[in-house]
């Protein structure tokens, strides 16, 4: 099944011709309207006129998250503010978020790509889509919502949290499609079990899970515990939001990236060189139809590989494999992006706390947990238990306030956190199996 059969099955020569046409057009636009691109192209000694084939894309410089931060909030926008109808943001490392703006046309394309993704996952008009992605600055909630409406399904904009109510609504409203993070789906299954509700007997048929890394083992667990087909979805706010790429229910082998709107490349994150098909490296995406904030060769930091082999579903768009990690130190904890440097910034802001810390990420039952170990220095030490406990609570609260992630602060003896020569070990991620 397709949402837009013509474009989803476009023969590759036609697809590539369309990509080149759109690439040239977006390059002209950013060169004319965004000083950052004019300058970075000039520094590389290149103009849009030098791009005559798709492979010429490699000549262009990369765009990084740091570039976006430096352009905070609107300097990378290519459309005037009068044409921007929506603003989203994702967390950044310095407390300042990364800001993206959408024109009416961008929202329409995003809705279509998300609708295509729903159909690829096996959803259709008539489905009741239980959208438990967070609504707000985060793109997950609204992105899936607009796609569900575009598809013509009935969407329940339940957002995250209040799990008991989620389960009641799922049961009473007859939800057939669930959209949330993979770990939250398992948490729901546990909560339902505790409430004496057999979640397997509900009408859920398909789950579309993303916004955090997960494994094939976790897919099996979700499918057996919730009695549905679990589909992996990929997206990032810088590029658009959810719906950049999705698995098809026919193959469940790799995520189709919508190539009529995005050009993917895989590079060696150390050298920046493009890697051949099948080799694992960092995903780089160029948006070729976006108006609000087009990005040229954006380094996603996500590690994957790409294949152009035909898929049994009939889509001609390339597939990327499940994300296997990050080329930077970003952690995704319960769907929240966390950089260790953000936690460090919170800790050094608390008087007496030294930047000797260790983050331990674990998955207890089905939920990610974060423990922040902090060394107790003499400045910090109090002879009274209640003072030290208040300190732990303060660290927990400030991290929650700044990053939106719940953690447990654990005070440890000084010099117990490993000091290594060179790169300090700041993170132990026990979720990796």
């Amino acid at each position, binding site marked *: 099944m397709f949402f837009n059969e013509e474009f989803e099955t476009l023969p590759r020569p036609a697809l590539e011709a369309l990509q080149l046409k759109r690439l040239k057009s977006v390059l002209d636009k950013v060169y004319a309207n965004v000083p950052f691109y004019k300058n970075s192209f000039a520094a590389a000694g290149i103009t849009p006129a030098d791009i005559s084939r798709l492979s010429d894309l490699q000549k262009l410089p990369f765009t990084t998250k740091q570039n976006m931060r430096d352009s905070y909030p609107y300097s990378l926008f290519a459309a005037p503010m009068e044409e921007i109808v929506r603003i989203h943001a994702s967390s950044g490392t310095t407390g300042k978020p990364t800001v993206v703006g959408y024109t009416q046309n961008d929202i329409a394309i995003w809705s279509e790509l998300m609708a295509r993704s729903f159909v690829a996952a096996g959803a259709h008009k008539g489905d009741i889509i239980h959208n438990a992605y967070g609504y707000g600055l985060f793109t997950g909630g609204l992105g899936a919502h607009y796609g569900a409406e575009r598809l013509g399904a009935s969407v329940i904009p339940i957002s995250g949290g209040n799990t008991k109510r989620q389960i009641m609504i799922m049961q009473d409203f007859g939800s057939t499609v669930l959209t949330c993070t993979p770990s939250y789906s398992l948490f729901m299954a546990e909560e339902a079990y505790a409430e004496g509700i057999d979640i397997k007997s509900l009408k859920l048929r398909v789950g579309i899970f993303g916004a955090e890394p997960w494994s094939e083992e976790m897919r099996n667990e979700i499918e057996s515990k919730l009695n549905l087909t679990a589909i992996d979805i990929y997206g990032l706010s810088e590029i658009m939001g959810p719906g950049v790429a999705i698995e098809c229910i026919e193959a469940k082998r790799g995520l189709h990236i919508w190539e009529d709107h995005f050009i993917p490349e895989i590079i060696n994150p150390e050298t920046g060189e493009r890697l051949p098909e099948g080799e694992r490296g960092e995903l780089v995406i160029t948006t070729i139809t976006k108006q609000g904030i087009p990005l040229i060769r954006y380094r996603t930091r996500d590690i994957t590989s790409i294949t152009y082999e035909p898929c049994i579903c009939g889509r001609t768009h390339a597939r990327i494999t499940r994300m296997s990690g990050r080329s930077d130190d970003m952690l995704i904890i319960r769907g929240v992006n966390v950089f260790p440097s953000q936690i460090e910034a919170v800790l050094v802001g608390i008087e007496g706390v030294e930047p000797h810390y260790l983050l331990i990420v674990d998955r207890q039952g089905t939920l990610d947990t974060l423990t922040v170990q902090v060394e107790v*220095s*003499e400045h910090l*030490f109090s*002879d*009274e*238990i209640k003072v030290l406990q208040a300190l732990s609570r303060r660290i927990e609260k400030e991290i929650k306030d700044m990053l939106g992630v719940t953690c447990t602060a*654990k*005070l440890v*003896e000084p010099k*117990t956190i490993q000091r290594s020569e060179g790169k300090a070990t700041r993170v132990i991620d026990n979720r990796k199996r």
Partner: protein
Amino acid sequence: MKVEQISIFIENKSGRLAEITRILGESGINIRALSLADTSDFGILRLIVNDGKSAAAVLKEQGFTVSMTEVVAVEVPDRPGGLSAILQTLDRELINVEYMYAFVERCGGNAVIIFRFDETDKAIAALNKENFNMLEGSRLYNM
């Protein structure tokens, strides 16, 4: 009237107390009294020793977090209501006891209790006024 106590931060993991007592023993330091306060994650070991400054120094050298705290050692008559009379005096003066623990040795016929107050000087004055006996540090360290 004030007595010097050393407080040590310890994680709740096996062998930490043994390690501290080993270090002190090897440095010829004698423990006169101790109390251990603990939570699920960490504890605070409070010690009165014959030489607080040296004890603090050797423990810091071994990487422990140590602080010195002033406490008061009060003689408590060994009869019903003995402790209660002291606590009532403090209560009248609105002085809080942060924590307290018993000293191992007796002093004559009396027990000795170590107190940590929120306002140490005010507590000493209040107890003096009511003629409760407090022990000098020098006497306690060598008892």
